[in-house]
């Protein structure tokens, strides 16, 4: 993969993607092409299929119809290890009972790069520490999992994904459980990453900070584009069932959404 082709080929794309689970249609007819380096927000009401879409794009679930391409190649044909070297998914609420240290939890992110015989090198160590630093979690490195707060755990999960050094990062509602300071900080950090990022969000104001937004409604992709163009009051009423209007923040001139009950 030369630099030229990497720029031209979409890092992640899907065509006519459909998924059925237990007889229900979870996704249908999704067409998406992610732009390299962008932060793409995925929004929709509960049950619209955000998590399922991320799982299918990450290769964790096989779609019932359609296909996914990762870096130009069909996802279904790539060995899992290659996929993991290019793409990392941070799920909601992954947890463990093991007393694993923060450093080791993040070091798991190096797994796709380490063969059975390769030792954990100094370079791997540096990558892990960098990932921790990026998430402002370096001071937690010796703490054990059980002693972490929800927000700290979330940051460790994201640090692990970063340690994978992926080209595409998928985040499933990463701001859940975070306090307000860390919510804002996380989004800023995620935006600043040179990695192409897809992030599922339920806070629509947070979604406004993304480069583009995809709106899912009952498994269908109903809108894709710049946040202000997509999240119109009409869209918000029809998909989310709420009345909304934009306000200008006097502090910095940014647009924010204000909601009223129907």
């Amino acid at each position: 993969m030369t630099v030229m082709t990497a720029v031209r080929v979409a890092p992640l794309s899907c065509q006519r993607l459909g998924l059925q689970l237990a007889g229900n249609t979870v996704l249908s007819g999704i067409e998406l092409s992610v732009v390299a380096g962008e932060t793409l927000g995925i929004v929709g009401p509960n049950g619209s299929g955000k998590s399922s879409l991320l799982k299918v794009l990450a290769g964790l679930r096989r779609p019932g119809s359609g296909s996914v391409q990762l870096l130009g190649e069909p996802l279904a044909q790539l060995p899992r290890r290659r996929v993991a070297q290019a793409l990392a998914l941070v799920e909601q609420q992954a947890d463990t009972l093991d007393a694993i240290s923060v450093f080791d939890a993040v070091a798991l992110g190096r797994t796709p790069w380490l063969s059975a015989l390769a030792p954990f090198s100094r370079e791997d160590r540096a990558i892990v520490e960098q990932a921790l630093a990026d998430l402002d979690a370096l001071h937690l490195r010796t703490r054990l999992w059980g002693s972490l707060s929800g927000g700290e755990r979330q940051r460790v999960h994201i640090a692990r994904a970063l340690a994978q050094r992926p080209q595409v990062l998928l985040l499933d509602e990463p701001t859940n459980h975070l306090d307000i300071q860390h919510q804002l900080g996380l989004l800023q950090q995620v935006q600043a990453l040179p990695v192409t990022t897809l992030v599922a969000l339920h806070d629509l104001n947070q979604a406004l900070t993304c480069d583009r937004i995809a709106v899912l409604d009952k498994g269908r992709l109903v809108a894709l584009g710049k946040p202000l163009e997509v999240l119109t009051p009409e869209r918000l009423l029809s998909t989310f069932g709420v009345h909304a209007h934009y306000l200008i923040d006097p502090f910095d001139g940014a647009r924010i959404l204000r909601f009223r009950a129907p």
Partner: protein
Amino acid sequence: MMMRLFPCIAVALAALLIALLAGTAIGESNLSPGVVGQVLANHLWQAGYPVDPIDAGIIWNYRLTRTLVAAACGAGLAICGVILQALLRNPLAEPYLLGLSAGASTGAVLVGLLGLGSVALSMSGGAFIGALAAFALVLVLARAAGPGSNNAQVILAGIAGSQLFNALTALLITKSATAEQARGILFWLLGNLSGVRWPSVWLAVPVALFGLVVCLWHRRVLDAFTFGADSAASLGIPVRRTRLLLISCAALVTAVMVSIVGAIGFVGLVIPHALRLLLGPGHSRLLPASALGGALFLVAADILSRSLIPGQVIPVGVVTALLGAPVFALILVSRRGRP
């Protein structure tokens, strides 16, 4: 890291060697350490000491083999426990969860009761086939429960399979067994190293080593399951293939061990937990430590089973439970309060 590795290995091997020597020196009858040393010297480097042939036979053919098999079985069962606890993400997972000991007991009882012993199959052979048959049934049940093959399905299928085969065993014993037979079978089922000779060693030790090597090769894979199967998949592990491979490997090792020594409980469940409490969950350390811990534990249990009551041998499975429960409790209590 490498600097710490070699001394650790040296200490581990030394501990194992001491345990093996202890197992060879201690037994039902009193043989002095001097005699033990002479017999070993005679066999290992033709030292030519004059030793009573019965003593020599006891030391070389009975005790040494028993100790080696105890070490191999302890190591094998502990490693299988580690695999199952890592893959099934359940602290109660242990090698017999997949129906292996229940199937083995049914197989052994069938051979023992139908008197197939005079034909090709011994109780060991019956146990091995029974264990694998039960495992196959559990796999089929887990598959049938749904295509997702999640952990709950596997565990429930294992429970169902175990209950079925345990019921079969109970049925066979109550309908057909005389008191003499029931006693013989029970003795075998509780775990017993009396019938072990050199052929068992040539089976148990390579199988244990094979299990250890396969697991060490997959140590990072096992680590990757820390946050669940989806997390492992996103870290690049082909989950279904890997789980099938490792669980089948565990089933094979367990089936071999159970067929040689009966169903010795406790080792596969508790040794991994005890070492995890002491060393943390990283499998690079947990696997070899569990193997060593299991080996030492079972050798100690075998020694105790022979020396606690003079002239009588207590089934090893009873000793492992009696010995292991308080030791485990001790570890739990001493770690209390530490995160």
